[in-house]
């Protein structure tokens, strides 16, 4: 985009150019002024070209809006089929004259977040121990595969009875159910959460709205607690998916509250205060704080004191708190997880500002089944969320199956004991191996990942250096890990590495691949 470029006749090109067109235009006016002599000439010399430019821009804008070509976006999705007689369809499909919404245009662009780009790279060349041992190993998705065997066994033993009932009667699950989930499942989930969160908090099923996964739960709460253009404060680094869940359709902004390695990435109330006042100064209405506890991607747990401080802060500003507690059952350290719900019993606390999100994708490895929960103590929020859950209800046969599984208390107890042990085992081994390579991790006691400090390996010490290292990991080591920049981490060089998608036996393989990159970085420095 140069200053002297003549306006082209192609609307797309102009669309891309327009932002600088006006500034380049102005750069032409000044010399023109010099050409025209005298005061009157100076005025005319300024006004006339200005007027011309303004009218030209107006004309261009009008042409652009009638032509309206959305430039064909290079999709990272597999291309849609083209058969010989349908060539018209596919060819036309990508350069359409008919408009889609602003939101759709934004979403349809190729995903820039490396979190998603990485997931895509794995899907094109996924590692498989036997079929594709040189493929990309997925360490960028917090899925728990460690205890799938236990769940699989339970299902094999119990499925027929639990889903379609004895006599294969589907009458009960076929018709319309209450959109916000069957009471039996709510009760089973309430018991489960009670167990998972250390048996110190009881969730009332009537305070629960069930949704197809925790993802719509976050979105629904965003719709209920804030208007378009408002904002939530969110401690960084945070789960990249929040950008989608909160910003896309609810149109709520996320204002980062930066946490630092010096504090082990724990939240600092001063930083929270600062972020809040800065937002106020900009005229942005902050409606709530969104936290994940246990934290994703760091894996630390909020202390009781910090939770109290958060509540005090929310009280003072009269805003909401959304606590995403999906990793509550995936703790392995000595620290005890405390749910935000646990400390609500004081009289002075206004429970109606607290909303908790939970789900079975992490703790029970059932991501495909789509089971999420909103727990709120605010009747109006519950009423609205119940109605909104119609757009994201859990499939009835799945509700049945999961209710049955959760009600098998003995199985759940065994599952948890084993799960905890296995996560701890893999975590300890992995972190140890990393440290032998000179890579230290943040202190974590929960989650399915470690938060690794690779700032010694990046050149330069910036987001650019971090991205280059990420690319090295993908192309040289063929492992997908999540760079801190996708999580909005303020310090470059941190990476989230998930270890629950590999087995204990596969750790040496992964470490070996990481070593390759570490060595390549050291030799090039």
């Amino acid at each position, binding site marked *: 985009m140069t200053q002297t470029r003549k306006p082209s006749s192609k609307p797309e090109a102009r669309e891309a150019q327009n932002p600088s067109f006006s500034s380049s235009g102005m750069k032409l006016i000044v010399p023109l002024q010099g050409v025209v002599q005298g005061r009157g000439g100076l005025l005319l010399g300024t006004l006339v070209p200005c007027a011309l430019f303004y009218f030209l821009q107006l004309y261009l804008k009008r042409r652009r809006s009638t032509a309206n070509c959305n430039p064909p976006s290079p999709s990272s999705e597999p291309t849609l089929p083209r058969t010989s007689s349908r060539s018209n369809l596919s060819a036309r499909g*990508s350069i359409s004259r008919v408009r889609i919404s602003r*939101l759709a245009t934004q979403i*349809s662009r190729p995903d820039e977040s490396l979190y998603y780009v990485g997931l895509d790279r794995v899907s094109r060349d996924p590692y498989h121990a036997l079929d594709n041992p040189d493929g990309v190993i997925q360490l960028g998705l917090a899925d728990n595969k460690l205890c799938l065997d236990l769940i699989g066994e339970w299902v094999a033993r119990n499925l027929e009875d639990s889903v379609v009932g004895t006599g294969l009667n589907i009458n009960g699950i076929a*018709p319309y159910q209450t959109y916000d989930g069957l009471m039996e499942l709510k009760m089973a989930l309430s018991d489960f959460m009670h167990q998972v969160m250390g048996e110190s908090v009881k969730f009332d099923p009537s305070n629960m709205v069930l949704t197809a996964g925790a993802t719509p739960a976050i979105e629904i709460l965003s719709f209920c607690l804030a208007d378009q253009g408002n904002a939530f404060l969110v401690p960084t680094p945070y789960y990249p998916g929040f950008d989608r869940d909160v910003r896309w359709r609810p149109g709520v902004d996320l204002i980062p509250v930066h946490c630092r390695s010096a504090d082990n990435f724990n939240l600092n109330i001063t930083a929270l205060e600062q972020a809040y006042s800065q937002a106020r100064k900009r005229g942005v209405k902050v409606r709530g704080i969104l936290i994940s506890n246990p934290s994703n991607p760091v894996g630390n747990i909020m202390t009781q004191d910090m939770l109290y401080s958060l509540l005090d802060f929310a009280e003072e500003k009269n805003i909401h708190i959304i606590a995403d507690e999906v990793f509550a059952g995936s703790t392995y350290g000595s620290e005890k997880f405390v749910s935000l719900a646990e400390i609500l019993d004081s009289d002075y606390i206004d429970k109606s500002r607290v909303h908790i999100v939970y789900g079975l994708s992490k703790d029970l490895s059932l991501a495909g089944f789509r089971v999420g929960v909103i727990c709120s103590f605010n009747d109006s929020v519950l009423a609205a969320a119940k109605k909104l859950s119609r757009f994201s209800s859990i499939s009835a046969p799945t509700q049945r199956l999961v209710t049955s599984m959760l009600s098998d208390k003995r199985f759940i107890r065994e599952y948890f004991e084993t799960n905890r042990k296995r996560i701890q085992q893999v975590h300890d081994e992995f972190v140890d191996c990393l440290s032998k390579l000179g890579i230290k991790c943040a202190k974590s006691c929960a989650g399915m990942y470690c938060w690794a400090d690779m700032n010694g390996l990046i050149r330069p010490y910036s987001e650019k250096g971090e991205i280059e290292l990420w690319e090295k990991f993908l192309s040289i080591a063929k492992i997908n890990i999540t760079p801190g920049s996708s999580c909005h981490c303020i310090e470059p060089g941190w990476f989230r590495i998930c270890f629950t998608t590999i087995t204990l036996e596969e750790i040496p393989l992964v470490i070996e691949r990481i070593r390759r990159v570490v060595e390549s970085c050291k030799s090039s420095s």
Partner: protein
Amino acid sequence: MGFEIEQPCVELSKVAVSETHGEDSPYFAGWKAYDENPYDELTNSSGVIQMGLAENQVSFDLLEKYLEENSEASTWGKGAPGFRENALFQDYHGLKTFRTAMASFMEQIRGGRAKFFPDRVVLTAGATAANELLTFILANPGDALLVPTPYYPGFDRDLRWRTGVNIVPIHCDSSNNFQITPQALEAAYQAAEAKNTKVRAVLITNPSNPLGATIQRSVLENLLDFVTRKNIHLVSDEIYSGSVFSSSEFVSVAEILEARNYKNAERVHIVYSLSKDLGLPGFRVGTIYSYNDKVVTTARRMSSFTLISSQTQHLLASMLSDKKFTENYIETNRERLRKRYNMIIEGLKSVGIECLKGNAGLFCWMNMSPLLEKKTREGELELWNAIVHEVRLNISPGSSCHCSEPGWFRVCFANMSEETLEVALERIRSFMERIKKE
């Protein structure tokens, strides 16, 4: 402690407090009456009979039989070997086997007259989510969709609530059996323009809810020409396509697009679901089929908020790919629905109540305008109140469907046994006799 300090109430969003969910309309009030006093053949034979819920219960036995004879469908095989991948599978592309099965099922319903590619199938948790999702994609807040009246009351909520998009009605009336005329289309478009509202799409339901009738081919051709001229989209909600009494009478917009060699197809999107045709609303299975690549990509990403359980996808994939089963199901279901329809039409006719000539769906569109004291919305609601509370039938008043002519009612007949339907008809007979005497 001591005195109470007034706590400022923490505020909710405009979406949360808005009334756009529409649950205060009479459509839902009738449901409350039913919930409080539901009919039961044995235990509550004087209760309110639910005729306001478009649910298909006439072909359950076929589903049950299938599951009995094919128990691998509901499991993952002996020892559940496929379970691991399935439990973790949350890819928004959905199971390929399931998408393929859905595409094939949609083809079968249309008698093979249209082809559907699995890669254009986007999965959502129900048609409700599909309609809302499409609205988010095709229109900006403040824009409008044109929808022919009368229409499904749920659209007011599904298309408008979170999206901020408006519905501008295309007025249809009984003079031509509520068909969409070019004049009505143009008038609706102009009405939107007059309010400075940008029209982004026309949304039709074909077969129509609440009319219970398919849209004629010529009307569809006209619609396609209209949306092409105006450079807007066409959404065709075809969730009742498998419930047409006779296969030959249903023309899907997909067929017309094929006949036109897909010219201008990128503005057309079809919504489908298994809730009506297969009677499985609890399963939450819906799809968007779009001829527009960008819409497919965007809808897929947005479907993260409304994914279908992988367990359900797995369960239904095998059932829907079983061509012998689906052929038999579609045919039998059609036949049974037609029988029910005839039963209710004859029953109503015998007491002097006329219905719109219908050929599809789970309901009939009943004309009670001759009974109205005042041919107004109030008159209709008065009559409706009498029917709900005296006759004890929950039926849906035309005004809740935005019908411009008072006196029409939607009456569902597929969500009950034949015996119960007979009881309902009997009650109507007595009601009509009482009225004649007065």
